[in-house]
């Protein structure tokens, strides 16, 4: 066979060679990345992405924890109201309390009403005034706790009118101020978390940008050869996107995994500390300090999002740089 034939003819000999190659598989590697996988810059980027994902995961998890706790406080506060009956000269405080209880019970939408006894009311002052004092001389107001029926709607104004008509020295605290402050606090926490999250993501995008440019500079020869052997810009940018997606995924999994581990540990530690005084305070503030399944899902989502962002950012930068080349 001529030299030309050897190269260009699809002869029987070549077909049998094809069969031989297919059947025996001469150990040729398939789909080897065109952008070399291992490099110092690659390891540095994995570290940066891991740290960023860890911070983003922590931020999102903490924000969710606080938002959930705030929801809990808000729910507890919103389900209760307080009627305060102040002692007034010339009026029988116990009678006023009984009248206020009766008036409150008559209003629909209330699940339960009970009054703190004189002793209970005085006990509430103990943390501020200390023990051993004779409080009988002090005009200590009496408190009535109104538990709201979650299935019904309460007409607060009707309750206020009914109570104050019968007991003019009574005031109703519907905890609106508290609710407002809690809403503002929860909103602020979420906004701060979002800002931190956005900053972390922006820093990560910049880091990926620098790494991509560095990788492009380091692989200039490869890009040029790919161009000259007929690779389209889309093909070349896909190679870089795949490379950086893998790096991003590795970093994301490490960082996201670490964040998940932190929340798992914090949940376990807070459970162990439940019997201590500090643990009690934490429990009161943040519940069990354990992230919900949704929270872990969000962190996993962030890790995947980081990998996708890493790939897309590198693709965008490579595409832009390739456009500058002829």
């Amino acid at each position, binding site marked *: 066979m001529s030299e030309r034939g050897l190269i260009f003819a699809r002869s029987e000999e070549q077909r049998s060679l094809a069969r031989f190659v297919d059947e025996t598989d001469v150990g040729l590697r398939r789909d080897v990345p065109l952008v070399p996988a291992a490099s110092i810059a690659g390891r540095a980027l994995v570290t940066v992405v891991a740290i960023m994902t860890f911070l983003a995961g922590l931020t999102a998890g903490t924000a969710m924890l606080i938002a959930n706790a705030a929801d809990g406080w808000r729910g507890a506060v919103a389900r209760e109201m307080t009627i305060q009956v102040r002692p007034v000269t010339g009026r029988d405080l116990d009678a006023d309390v009984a009248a206020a209880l009766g008036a409150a019970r008559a209003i629909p939408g209330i699940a339960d009403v009970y009054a703190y006894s004189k002793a209970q009311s005085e006990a509430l002052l103990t943390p501020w005034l200390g023990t051993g004092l004779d409080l009988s001389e002090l005009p200590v107001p009496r408190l009535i706790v109104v538990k709201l029926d979650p299935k019904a709607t309460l007409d607060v104004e009707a309750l206020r009118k009914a109570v104050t008509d019968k007991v003019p020295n009574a005031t109703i605290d519907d905890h609106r101020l508290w609710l407002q402050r809690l809403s503002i606090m929860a909103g602020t926490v979420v906004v701060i978390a979002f800002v931190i999250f956005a900053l972390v993501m922006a820093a990560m995008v910049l880091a990926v940008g620098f790494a991509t440019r560095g990788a492009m500079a380091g692989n200039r020869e490869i890009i040029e050869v790919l161009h000259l*052997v007929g690779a389209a810009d889309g093909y070349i940018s896909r190679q870089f996107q795949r490379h950086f997606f893998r790096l991003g995924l590795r970093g994301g999994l490490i960082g996201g995994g670490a964040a998940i581990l932190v929340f798992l540990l914090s949940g376990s530690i807070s459970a162990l500390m439940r019997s201590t005084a500090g643990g009690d305070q934490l429990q009161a503030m943040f519940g069990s300090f354990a992230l919900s399944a949704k929270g872990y899902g969000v962190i996993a989502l962030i890790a995947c999002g980081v990998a996708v962002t890493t790939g897309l950012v590198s693709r965008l930068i490579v595409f832009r740089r390739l456009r500058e080349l002829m």
Partner: protein
Amino acid sequence: MVRFENVGLRYGMGGEILKDISFEIEPHSFQFLTGPSGAGKTTLLRLILLSLKPTRGLISLFNKDASQLSKDAITDLRRRVGVVFQDFRLLDHLTTYENVALPLRVQGRDESSYRAEVVELLRWVGLGEHMHALPPVLSGGEKQRAAIARALIVRPELLLADEPTGNVDPTLARRLLRLFAELHKSGTAVVIATHDLALMDQFETARRLVLGDCRLHIYE
């Protein structure tokens, strides 16, 4: 196939390194591009491959005005051209097989569709035993042959070879030249940049494009 009209090229604000270059490369033709080192042979090949933009003049490749082509269209045209670079330009992290298969791989072809073809070509250029070797362990001549195989694997309509026999012994040089001649007979237009007079003497009928003093002189 390739047409240059009054093409000039300068880098930055310097003087023109190529002046008023006008020539045509016909289909099925065979020519040597020669001239002293530094005369601009590689630069001229890069202009033909549209990897450099001229500062003036008109270049058309496969009857298409290069200045009017989109990037995708340039990519399509490059796929019809095989190139052998002077410095081989093999990718060091890919095996010889993967380097030779690269032009087919970047076209998105399935590996199984070209494996036999690549293996056959590698065996023919004497690299059958080095299919799995990475370029850094190949000798200069072996790299040269791998680079030639990579250019030929796409069955190009135009072959541009920059000093293709610079690193091989005379026997292999003659064998490679015979291969280029066979390619030419099969319809491929061939441009070989060389300053090897002995090589050119083996093909006395070939046209010679001689670069000197930034200009091109053609000897039919």
